[in-house]
């Protein structure tokens, strides 16, 4: 599949890769390291049109959403957004999502790799309810503008509203150079910025206009490589790495961010209550390499010569200059400063458990 900006990427000389069936730019000419650092110091523009997005409307929207996701949104006011999860009856993570409360509807953003699975699962749960689910993947295009300069860049392009009036995790409908846009102050980089849904037919025009507006402030287009290293430094989970249907939100450390066990009834709640009532058998941690080496998904974590876990993500962190990673370790090996080894090509390398996130932007207001 191709995003609406595919031809632009190819013309710009982007290196394209397959990502969940999408032909996506992994990097442009500047390379992922420079793209990463630019988002931390100025701004980057990402094509995230591959992300799935559903509009949920109808009188039963709220009860339907309360049933299918883990955050209690009964008090999530219009104009606000929240991170959440879709869980199975057994508490496994079907997907991690973002929910946006719009004036007449809700918007759910899901992972590209899970779009079809999520839609059919949601449709099966919507049966008998007065709720409509509309896939907005083809009539809209989705972009992310991230970095400390993002607000300055988007402000003059936005008509009828001031982005400075929007706090973090907010959503507003506005006009972006004449095109009806849903503007969200969310992102996946650990930097301030926004994500936007724009009309499909305006994708090329707005992409170019944003780049032009941002160029004097250091804006460059960024690919999936930078997106992955930015989210990893911010310790934001990636489906298929930190989370999947065999992992639960509590072991993944997402309980506080995405799950409310005190309120509404939702699918998977019983199973998660059971997980929460017992000591965890394993949990997600962050670690830093004490010996140089690049940890990668699937590498074993050892302690005292035996396997106590596995790596889910690893990277040479451009912002910190350290070799860092996340992974699941057994109970008893998750304490801060605990020494473990990451087995890289049969060779155990010293690492220690460190605090997450690895990087916190100084640009949050």
């Amino acid at each position, binding site marked *: 599949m191709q995003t609406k900006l595919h031809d632009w990427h190819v013309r710009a000389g982007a290196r394209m890769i397959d990502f969940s069936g999408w032909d996506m730019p992994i990097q442009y000419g500047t*390379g*992922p*390291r420079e793209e990463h650092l630019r988002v931390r110091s100025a701004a980057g523009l990402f094509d995230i049109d591959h992300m799935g997005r559903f509009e949920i409307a109808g009188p039963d929207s709220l009860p339907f959403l309360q049933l299918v996701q883990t955050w209690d949104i009964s008090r999530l006011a219009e104009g606000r957004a929240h991170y959440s999860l879709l869980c199975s009856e057994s508490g496994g993570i079907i997907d991690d999502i973002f929910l946006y409360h719009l004036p007449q509807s809700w918007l759910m953003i899901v992972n590209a790799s899970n779009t079809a699975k999520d839609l059919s699962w949601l449709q099966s749960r919507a049966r008998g309810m007065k709720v409509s689910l509309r896939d907005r993947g083809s009539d809209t295009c989705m972009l992310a503008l991230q970095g400390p300069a993002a607000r300055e860049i988007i402000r003059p392009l936005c008509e009828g509203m001031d982005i400075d009036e929007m706090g973090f995790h907010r959503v507003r409908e506005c006009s972006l150079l004449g095109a009806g846009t849903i503007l969200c102050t969310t992102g996946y980089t650990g930097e301030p910025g926004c994500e936007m849904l724009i009309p499909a037919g305006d994708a090329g025009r707005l992409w170019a206009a944003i780049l032009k507006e941002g160029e004097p402030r250091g804006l460059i287009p960024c690919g999936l*490589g930078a997106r992955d*290293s930015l989210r990893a430094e911010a310790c934001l989970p990636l489906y298929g790495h930190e989370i999947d249907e065999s992992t639960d939100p509590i072991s993944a450390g997402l309980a506080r961010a995405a799950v409310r066990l005190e309120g509404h009834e939702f699918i998977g709640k019983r199973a998660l209550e059971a997980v929460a009532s017992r000591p965890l058998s394993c949990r997600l941690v962050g670690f830093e390499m004490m010996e140089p*080496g*690049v940890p990668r998904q699937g590498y074993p974590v050892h302690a005292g010569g035996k396997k106590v876990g596995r790596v889910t993500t690893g990277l040479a962190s451009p912002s910190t200059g350290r070799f860092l990673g996340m992974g699941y370790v057994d109970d008893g090996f998750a304490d801060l400063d605990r020494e473990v080894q990451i087995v890289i*090509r049969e060779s155990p390398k010293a690492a220690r458990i460190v605090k997450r996130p690895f990087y916190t932007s100084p640009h949050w207001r």
Partner: protein
Amino acid sequence: MEYKFDQKARYSKTHEWVRMDGAEAVVGITDYAQNKLSDVVFTDLPAVGKVLTKESAFMVIESVKAAEEVFAPVSGAVTARNEKLVKAPELVNKDPFGDGWLVRVRLSDVKELDSLMDLASYRKLVETL
């Protein structure tokens, strides 16, 4: 895509280069190879004294994408390794034929050089890729 080459080097099918410098050979990866790897973040350099066997993997270069093995274009013992890469692995990207060299090798059989490609043949190979 335009790649850089080194007139004085000889090349392997797996995109390593060798250049004689006095009695020793300098070994690295080509501009084509570093470009395909993307940003290099770590080089797992072999110890001085390690004996390389032609066409066998002797080290790993880690990029943002993956860990890739580097194959010895010639046989011989490592006499020096590029210590600059420990702090600055990106030199492999910036200057693959210069400051981004990997190891120096004392050749065990100088005739092995004849089995490697010259610039014209290697350029032709890269153009077909």
